[in-house]
């Protein structure tokens, strides 16, 4: 707030309060009556002067109290040059400590801490150091200081997390953090230097030249050999009673490991196997006759005993064992090829659907209300009365996935949607590829492979309210969505029987049907397996609000935050519980698998990296002596309201003491 802000000026009126109160006080004189004053002598004048002074001091303190209170609320700031202790002759050691998941391996992190301490202990005169941690992001641990004790103290609370380090991202982030200073920088990076952490572009790993001053890069390796590591790579559930665990080894082919693989369902050990794992590649272990509970199941596959990187010896997976949801499929012919494709795709979807086929001729429209969503094999086959019933069903909140089959070819307009059909008829001999896909749509975000699909489509003219999700050349819609009332309808402008399109025989068909089904049935769209340090979009959980508990059972949202959609950082591995209006779901979180590959970068690569950085710095070393002093825009704002609050507290104490004393004098009693 500015000092001339209306609230500040209003607050200043509070100063009048003590003045007014003191004026009232002075008008009221309390006296003690005594029988006679013939034996009394007045006190020396000094007393009166002292009392008057105390009285004025008390009033001044009270005025000051209000003044400082108002000033504190105005949040005043002092401008000071940043990093005042850093000059052009200062060497600033920027220490970046790798805290990514791979640093949990063996003694990597302990070694890294020791290296950091060595750097700190070696700080000389006119040298300062700052400390950062690098994982999925960069975190400032300690700003530039010559005091090694502060830095050592800051080290004590550090530990590796579950994040994934990318060296290119790290250097880019460091550029933004250190570019404001004028010191000579030495960038120390202490890491295990995994190959998987290397940036795609080598140039991304080169720090910016800062004010033409050389930036030295000191790479401190904590591992010099490639450590063998095995991890649980994947967990697949099939037929609702079998689990296949994929174990990946990061070692040489000659290496092998005798391990015990355990399968736990909902924290209960169900099966275990003794296996010999290969040093390289994948090994698959199958567990049969696995018993799941209804609803979400926690599947934990463990490798025992643990190797040097224990964090990836367990993998958490969520399997939804809910009974298949019923879905109504309306068709002219239950024996048609389209029915077969649709049923097969829906029944094999991860969620699992029970397809109830109903011929249009025998349909009682009242049964529509029993289903959250329905499939129409050929929208051209429905008559006007059924079109009205379906329109009412959608308006009331239902959802429809409709295709345009043979019966739609002669339509003038599409029923329910009331879209005009163009004059350009479908030509069987001319199948066109897909040219546009809206991947932002929930039904398409997880599907891929549309590029290989060729189809002939019904040329529909849009009314303007529809959203085209997939289109061919010249923007001919393939898949569109329209909202009617409280419901929605998705129209595929081609057939699902492999007559007008090869979509049903392409792999993308199954995933598309699964995603479309999940979207139309309004189930939550949360991805049930996530990578650590990523974010969970609570809005995908089926509602705009909810609560999330981390693997330790700690609620992550305050009461007020639960009413707003949030992105929740997934910092821990394990199971997050998400409660929302869409129900309760589990989300399994595992470390990024790339961190499990402990293969380190080649020493020559690291040396080249240092050399390139040094060369870049030297070439850019041009004195910018004109930049003496600190520009105004570089001044740091230091809020001083805390100082005001401390002053306020002192004034309150002084006022209390003085006020009490003054009060005693005025009402002195016999």
């Amino acid at each position, binding site marked *: 707030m500015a000092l001339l802000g209306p609230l500040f000026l209003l607050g200043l009126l509070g100063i009048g309060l003590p003045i007014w109160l003191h004026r009232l006080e002075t008008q009221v004189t309390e006296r*003690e009556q005594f029988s006679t*004053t013939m034996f009394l002598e007045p*006190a020396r004048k000094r007393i009166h002067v002292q009392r008057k002074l105390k009285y004025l001091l008390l009033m001044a303190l009270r005025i000051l109290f209000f003044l400082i209170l108002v000033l504190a609320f105005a949040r005043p700031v002092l401008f000071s040059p940043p990093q005042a202790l850093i000059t052009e002759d200062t060497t600033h050691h920027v220490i970046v400590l790798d805290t990514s998941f791979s640093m949990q391996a063996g003694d990597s992190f302990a070694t890294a801490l020791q290296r950091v301490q060595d750097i700190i202990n070696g700080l000389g005169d006119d040298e300062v150091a700052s400390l950062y941690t690098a994982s999925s992001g960069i975190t400032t641990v300690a700003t530039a200081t010559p005091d090694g004790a502060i830095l050592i103290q800051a080290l004590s609370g550090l530990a590796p997390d579950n994040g994934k380090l990318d060296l290119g991202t790290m250097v880019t982030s460091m550029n933004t953090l250190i570019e404001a200073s004028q010191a000579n920088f030495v960038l120390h990076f202490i890491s295990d230097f995994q190959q998987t952490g290397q940036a795609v572009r080598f140039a991304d790993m080169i720090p910016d030249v800062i004010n033409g001053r050389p930036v030295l890069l000191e790479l401190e390796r904590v591992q010099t050999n490639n450590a063998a590591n095995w991890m649980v790579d994947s967990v697949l559930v099939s037929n609702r009673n079998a689990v296949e665990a994929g174990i990946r080894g990061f070692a040489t082919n000659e290496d092998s490991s005798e391990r015990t693989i355990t399968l736990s369902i909902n924290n209960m050990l169900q099966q275990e196997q003794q296996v010999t794992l290969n040093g390289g590649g994948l090994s698959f272990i199958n567990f049969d006759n696995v018993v799941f509970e209804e609803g979400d199941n926690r599947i934990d596959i463990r490798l025992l005993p643990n190797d040097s990187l224990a964090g990836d010896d367990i993998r958490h997976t969520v399997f939804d064992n809910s009974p298949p949801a019923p879905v109504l499929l309306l068709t002219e012919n239950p024996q048609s090829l389209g029915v077969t494709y649709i049923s097969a795709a829906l029944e094999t979807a991860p969620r699992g659907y029970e397809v109830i086929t109903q011929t249009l001729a025998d349909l009682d429209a009242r049964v529509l209300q029993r289903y959250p969503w329905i499939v129409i094999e050929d929208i051209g086959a429905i008559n006007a009365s059924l079109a009205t019933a379906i329109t009412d069903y959608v308006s009331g909140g239902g959802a429809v996935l409709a295709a345009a089959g043979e019966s739609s070819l002669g339509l003038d307009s599409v029923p329910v949607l009331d879209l005009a059909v163009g004059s350009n008829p479908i030509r069987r001999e001319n199948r066109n590829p897909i040219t546009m896909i809206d991947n932002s749509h929930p039904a398409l975000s997880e599907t891929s492979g549309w590029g290989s699909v060729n189809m002939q489509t019904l040329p529909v003219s849009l009314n303007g309210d529809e959203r085209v999700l997939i289109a061919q050349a010249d923007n001919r819609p393939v898949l569109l969505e329209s909202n009617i009332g409280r419901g929605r309808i998705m129209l595929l402008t081609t057939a699902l029987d492999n007559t007008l399109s090869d979509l049903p025989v392409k792999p993308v068909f199954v995933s598309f049907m699964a995603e479309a089904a999940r979207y139309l049935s309004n189930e939550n769209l949360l991805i049930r397996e996530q990578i650590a340090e990523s974010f969970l979009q609570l809005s995908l959980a089926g509602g705009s609000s909810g609560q999330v508990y981390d693997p330790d059972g700690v609620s992550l949202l305050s009461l007020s935050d639960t009413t707003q959609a949030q992105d929740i950082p997934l910092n821990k591995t394990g199971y997050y519980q998400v409660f929302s209006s869409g129900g309760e779901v589990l989300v399994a979180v595992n470390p990024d698998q790339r961190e499990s590959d402990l293969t380190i970068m080649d020493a020559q690569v690291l040396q080249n990296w240092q050399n390139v950085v040094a060369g870049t710095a030297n070439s850019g070393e041009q004195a910018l002596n004109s930049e003496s002093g600190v520009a105004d825009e570089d001044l740091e704002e230091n809020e001083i309201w805390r100082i005001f609050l401390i002053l306020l507290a002192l004034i309150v104490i002084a006022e209390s003491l003085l006020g009490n004393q003054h009060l005693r004098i005025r009402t*002195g009693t016999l």
Partner: protein
Amino acid sequence: MSPGSTETRNAQTRLLDPSVLASMSNLELVAKAVVEGFVNGLHRSPKFGFSQEFVEYREYSDGDDPRYIDWNVFSRTDRTYIKRFMGETNSHLMLLLDTSASMGFGSASTSKLQYGKYLGASLAYLSSRQHDAIGVMLFDDDVVDYRPPASKVGSLQGVIHTLDKAEASMGTDINKPMNRFREHVKKRGLVAVISDFYCDAEELLENIRPLAMHGQDVIMFHLLDSDELDPKIKQSTLYEDMETGQAIEVEPTYMAKAYREKIQNHIKNIEEAANGIRADHVLINTADPLDKALHNYLTFREKRG
């Protein structure tokens, strides 16, 4: 002394406590309670009690109770004589009660004026038991009320009524009321002056001396509150004079030392002034029971015969 008598004695002593008396609204009742309690507590009966043993005749004078006129003598001699009995002192008691504003001061439940009323009423009651003529004069800077000495029926009630309606007001000027009093008093008797004597000792002496020279026996009851005798304050305090309204701020150190010296000097001066005219000076702390004052009064009467 038996336990029962100890309890009786304690009960009687309690009746003399000013705080207990303050709870009694009837001043005559207070006087009776005080005197009866006081008399019953004495080890021997004083020679002031009513006696039926005839001693002599005395010529009737104004204020004497007509009931004691010997009508037989009157029929023989055509002169009025009063019978006198053993125990009678043939004395007049004149109560002079200071009602100046300073007498209204009191740190406890009883002000000096209230205490003076109790004392005056008790003295009047004692005297009435001996058939003394009793009168009262209330004064501040002038005579507020005056009732001449009389021993007739109802005179006690009249005196007590006069005392009862006294209120503290105005300042103190002993000259004017004393001059007026000297104009009224004709016969010898006892004069009990009840005051805090916040006046100059010399001035007081000048006003009392004529009374003594006129043959009056003067007893000066000097009433002071405990806070006047022994003030205790912790902080500088602004004191307002109850008579003049003058305000003076004083320090605790002054009140603890210099003031006490001054008040003690003043008391001493008053006492010396009293001794100079053979008057009795009785200093009374109004926090003390009334028996001290009554005892002094009786001693004084015995001494004066």
